[in-house]
C-alpha cells in the first residue's frame, strides 16, 4: 500500500472528492454497529413527533463515511491525529418509495483540500466540505495528519 508523501502537497490542492450515497439501511446498519439506537434515525413517526422533518442520518455516520476515503488516500490509519467537525444541518434520509430499503435516498458530496502543510516536519491539515444538495451539513471539518 502506498503512503502519501506530504512533501508533495500544496495548499489548495484537492486531494479527495467523493459522492457518498446513504439509504435507510445505512442508518440501521450504523445504529447496530455504533450502538446509537436513537429512534430519530429509524422511526419516521418518532422523528416528526420530536420536531424533525423526518428520519435523519446520525451526524456521526456522516463524520465516519467522510473520513474513510481520506484515510485510504493517506494510506496509514495511524497518521490521523485530530478529526473535528460541527453538525450544521441534518441530513434527511427518506425511506425508498419502492424496492429495497438499501436504495440510496440521500447523497453526501465531500471535497478534501490541503489547508496547511509542513513537509519537513511531516504534518498537514486537510479541510473538508460536506454537502447534501446545496447545503453544508458538516462545517469547520478539519483533519490533522502527522507521521
Amino acid at each position, binding site marked *: 500500500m502506498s503512503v502519501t508523501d506530504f512533501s508533495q502537497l500544496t495548499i489548495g490542492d484537492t486531494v479527495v472528492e467523493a459522492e457518498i450515497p446513504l439509504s435507510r439501511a445505512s442508518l440501521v446498519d450504523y445504529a447496530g454497529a455504533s450502538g446509537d439506537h436513537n429512534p430519530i434515525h429509524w422511526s419516521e413517526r418518532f422523528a416528526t413527533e420530536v420536531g424533525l422533518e423526518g428520519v435523519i442520518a446520525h451526524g*456521526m455516520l456522516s463524520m465516519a463515511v467522510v473520513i474513510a476515503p481520506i484515510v485510504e488516500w493517506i494510506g496509514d490509519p*495511524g497518521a490521523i491525529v*485530530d478529526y*473535528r*467537525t*460541527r*453538525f450544521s444541518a441534518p441530513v434527511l434520509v427518506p425511506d425508498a418509495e419502492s424496492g429495497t430499503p438499501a436504495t440510496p435516498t440521500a447523497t453526501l458530496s465531500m471535497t478534501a483540500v490541503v489547508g496547511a502543510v509542513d513537509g519537513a516536519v511531516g504534518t498537514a491539515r486537510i479541510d473538508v466540505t460536506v454537502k447534501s444538495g446545496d447545503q453544508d451539513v458538516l462545517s469547520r471539518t478539519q483533519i490533522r495528519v502527522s507521521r
Partner: protein
Amino acid sequence: MPVNTDKQGTSYSLPRPYEVSREAVAEFALATNAKADYHFDTEAATALGYHDVVAPTTFAVIIAQKSEAAYISDPESGVDFSKVVHGSEQFSITRPIVAGDSLDATTHVDGVRASGGNAMITTRTEITDAAEQPVVTVSSTIVVRGDGE
C-alpha cells in the same frame, strides 16, 4: 425538569472496560464505508506494524457514547434525550484503536449552559488502555432544544 447546571465539573466512568473485538471493528468498518484491508485482515494490519486489525478513525465514538450515556441517563442531569441534537465532535488521537484493546473511559462534563432558548452541554471523554496510557480524547457538544430555562 430543565438541564441541571450543577452537573458541570462532574465525571462519569464506564463500569467496566470496553473490550475491542475483531468482529466489532469489521462491523463498524462495513457500516461506515471503511474498505481498507487492515480493518478486516490481521495480516494486513500487522504488515503496517499494528498488533491486530485497526479500528476506523471514529470507532472511539462507540466507547465515548457509552460513557456519555451514564451522564445523559442520570436522572439528576435533567437531559431529555428526545430533545438532544449533536452540535460538534472532535477526536484527539494518540494512537489508533486495535482489536484486543481493553479500554477505560471517563466522561468529564466540562460545560452546561443556557444558550438562546436551548441548553448547550460540552463533554470530554478520555479513553485509556489497559496500561493506563491515553488512546483518544473525544470531545462532544450537544444541544438540548427548548431547554434553556
